[in-house]
């Protein structure tokens, strides 16, 4: 492992440093500029990414794009203060200039020395590969055309099919004044199908997709074009039959997998270290207290193999971890980056993430998962006299201070006398995080992870995330339909 890790560092250095005439040894000098008087921690984050996207519409791949992005972000911390600057250029001059700018956050105080470098040993959670090269352009186009063909053949009401294939090859290297030296190569791919169906003048959409941190060729090998095309058509056809959703407070059963965005919004954000350090989270100061019903255990797990939210190392060079946030209903952990962990007297949990070198890292989720319970999913549905069964969702949002969260169903059904009956139109569900978690009354034994489509936004920065949960019953949640 040591040998391959060293070669990962060398590989990252060859992508990031060599073109600008730098070596790993030069980084200490660069870091010195950021570690000015009064600065107690500084880091350099080098990144380069190659991204491509192919889009099919009207049966033809008419559009494809390619993007090259890269640079270095330099951060200087002094107590709670952060100075930050970045540059598209990775050169000695750029490091000096950005370092001096970032360290300008304080002018006086002791001058620390850069600690000798310690290579961070993070266990690989995905292959350090370029995911874009495994398929030829013709094969990528063929995959998209297959999705088009399958979707159109699936039902005569299908009037529009769009499919997209995208991938990112990202190389990062972190050098910090605490000695950290770490590198990572992060693949990320995704395949999506969206269809429009039209019947008797009524128009509906259905969509499906997924991916993860692996080569594009795996998308083909796993038959995603056919699977997601059929799934998108199925969902659109369900929506063609949907009646108006109910309005008011109802029991809600969530299907396993992607509906786990409930956790992401209702509890996840509220357990990020920065909000708790500042006391702005509804969960602040509640460590060790009951914040969810018995049986609810929630983890943030960056170590899942090849998942969209997984990280071998985080963006500060801390190895990705599995952190238990809630255990059997009791709050046991926050997600931390170095800044907030230090200020709260805690340990970093490998949750420091940033959209790019041009953004500051913050504590962020990776893959947030509720562990399986004991209940039979059929039994859970049978326990509902009148309620909602929500299978798929669009986005969600939370106000971490009041704890109010929403998420929008894109496929849902009425449950009447324990049976799934009519599909209903998409509706927003709203609740209060701690309250909703207290109303979890049944937890299925069918934990599933989502297909790999999540993007989490915080302070304008988007990062890929995963979610997972078993079938789940909440005794009461407000459903935002139109039928009161």
């Amino acid at each position, binding site marked *: 492992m040591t040998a391959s890790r060293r070669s990962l560092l060398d590989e990252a250095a060859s992508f990031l440093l060599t073109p600008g005439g730098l070596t790993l040894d030069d980084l200490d000098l660069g870091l010195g500029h950021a570690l000015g008087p009064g600065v107690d921690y500084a880091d350099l984050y080098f990144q380069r990414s190659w991204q491509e996207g192919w889009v099919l519409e009207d049966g033809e791949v008419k559009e494809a794009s390619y993007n090259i992005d890269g640079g270095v972000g330099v951060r200087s911390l002094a107590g709670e203060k*952060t100075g930050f600057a970045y540059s598209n250029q990775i050169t000695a001059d750029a490091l000096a200039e950005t370092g001096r700018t970032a360290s*300008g956050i304080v002018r006086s105080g002791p001058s620390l020395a850069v600690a000798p470098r310690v290579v961070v040993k993070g266990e690989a959670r995905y292959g350090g590969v370029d995911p874009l090269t495994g398929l030829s352009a013709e094969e990528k186009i063929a995959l998209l055309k297959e999705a088009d063909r399958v979707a159109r053949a699936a039902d005569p009401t299908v009037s529009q099919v769009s499919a997209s294939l995208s991938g990112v090859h990202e190389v990062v290297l972190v050098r910090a004044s605490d000695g950290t030296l770490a590198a990572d190569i992060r693949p990320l791919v995704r395949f999506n199908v969206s269809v*429009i169906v039209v019947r008797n003048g009524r128009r509906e959409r259905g969509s499906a997709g997924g991916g993860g941190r692996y080569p594009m060729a795996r998308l083909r090998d796993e038959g995603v074009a056919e699977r997601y095309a059929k799934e998108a058509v199925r969902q659109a056809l369900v929506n063609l039959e949907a009646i108006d959703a109910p309005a008011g407070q109802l029991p809600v059963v969530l299907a396993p997998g992607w509906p786990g965005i409930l956790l992401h919004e209702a509890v996840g954000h509220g357990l990020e270290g920065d909000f708790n350090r500042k006391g702005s989270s509804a969960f602040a100061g509640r460590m060790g207290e009951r914040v969810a019903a018995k049986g609810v255990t929630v983890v943030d797990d960056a170590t899942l193999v090849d998942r969209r939210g997984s990280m071998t190392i985080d963006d500060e060079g801390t190895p990705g971890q599995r952190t238990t946030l809630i255990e059997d209903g009791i709050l046991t952990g926050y997600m931390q980056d170095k800044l907030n962990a230090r200020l709260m007297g805690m340990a970093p949990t490998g949750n420091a993430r940033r959209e790019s070198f041009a953004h500051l890292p913050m504590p962020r989720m990776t893959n947030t998962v509720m562990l399986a319970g004991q209940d039979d999913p059929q039994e859970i549905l049978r326990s509902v006299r009148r309620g909602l069964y929500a299978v798929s969702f669009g986005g969600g949002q*939370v106000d971490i201070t009041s704890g109010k969260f929403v998420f929008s169903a894109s496929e849902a059904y009425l449950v009447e006398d324990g049976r799934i009956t009519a599909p209903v139109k998409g509706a*927003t569900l709203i609740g209060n995080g701690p309250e909703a978690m207290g109303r979890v009354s049944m937890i299925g034994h069918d934990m599933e992870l989502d297909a790999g489509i999540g993007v989490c936004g915080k302070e304008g920065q988007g990062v890929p995330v995963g979610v997972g949960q078993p079938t789940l019953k909440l005794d009461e949640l407000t459903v935002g339909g139109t039928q009161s």
Partner: protein
Amino acid sequence: MTQAFDAAAQQTLLETRAQMALELARRLGADACEVGASVDQGVGVSVREGEVETVELSRDQGIAVTVYVGKRKGSASSTDAGEASIRAVVEKAVAIARHTGEDPAAGLADAELMASELPDLDVHHPWDLTTEQAIELALACEAAGRRRPGILSSDGASLSSGEGVRVYANSHGFLGGQRGSRHSLSCMLIAEDEHGMQRDYDYTSARHPRDLLAPERVGESAAERTLRRLGAGRPATGRMPVLFDPTLAGGLVGSLMGAIAGGALYRQASFLCDRLGDPLFPEWFSLQERPMEVGAMASSPFDGDGVQTRDNRFIDRGRLASYMLSAYSARRLGMQTTANAGGARNLRLEAPLDTRDALLARMERGVLVTELMGQGVNAVTGDYSRGAAGFWVENGEIRHPVEEFTIAGNLEAMFKGLSGIGSDTDTRGSIHTGSWLIDEMTVAGA
């Protein structure tokens, strides 16, 4: 900590690079090419509880190239605008165009539509501001808010100031550049009572620093907005009128524009497909676009295709008078471009305006919505369902704050049910509008 930014020199540099890319594309066999290049620079500071929290200096650049080989198209972009990078980007775009399928609608906008009038629209007003001054302003803003009794703590005040240059060029020989600036100051505060914590914020934003509200006013307003949320209950479930705050009313205009955008129409992903000429709003309502307005947030003499912008009237006396089209989407629909590549610029309403009190009196009983959560707007069907917070209105008066409820309806019914617009116009963004009173929606609360 300020960085020098010579906008004129940057513009010249970007123009040179754009032309270099065009020339390179021609030599590599492209029949047509278009290039967008930009550079932005700014400073952002945030303070919290009377202390500096972050100081951020940003400098972003990028170049994006689209080439056409016959009717095939390829695009590539980079955040590195150096010569080597431009070469790589153009080569990649040409390589992609060898693989993509033919698209009869592909290509530049017609040459005769290229903008020839390129007046200075007075949108570039850089702020000669030191980091220390920026911090002082943010501290003053936060202090004014924290002074208010009942404010528990601050979630921070931020000031950001930036300027930039963007250039668009294409192989018709069009070359347009524009410099712009934007400055903003915001403050978010937290208050608490026995039911828990609430937070809210306010901000000011302008092209010219002199048009910003005083820091103290922003802080005080943020405090006001936060305190008034304390003690919130939940509204009753039922059908009732809903009054949208100006900022949120702007979002309804945004949903309309999304549904009449060419891209949504040719994909049949809009509830307003094939509806040109139909009455969508009450007769007293018109909506126009004023892209050449001097000093406004989204002013530009040319659109993303290089086409000369012009005043558009999207809603005329209640009827859908025009779609919002780029050259490409227009070709797809067999229509003419409306010079809206890149979106709408400066939307203005034409409607009789009422005071907020008059609107409250007209609604009598319902909810005034001041915050919306989630993305529950379905552009394909117009179905609308979102989380909300605001105030309960009874007998035409604001009674108490309400939260944790949803409002639901369908955009088409909501547009038809528009029954009044407030004179409380929000001019901070590119959509200027006051409050919107919608006659009936479903509120789901307690």
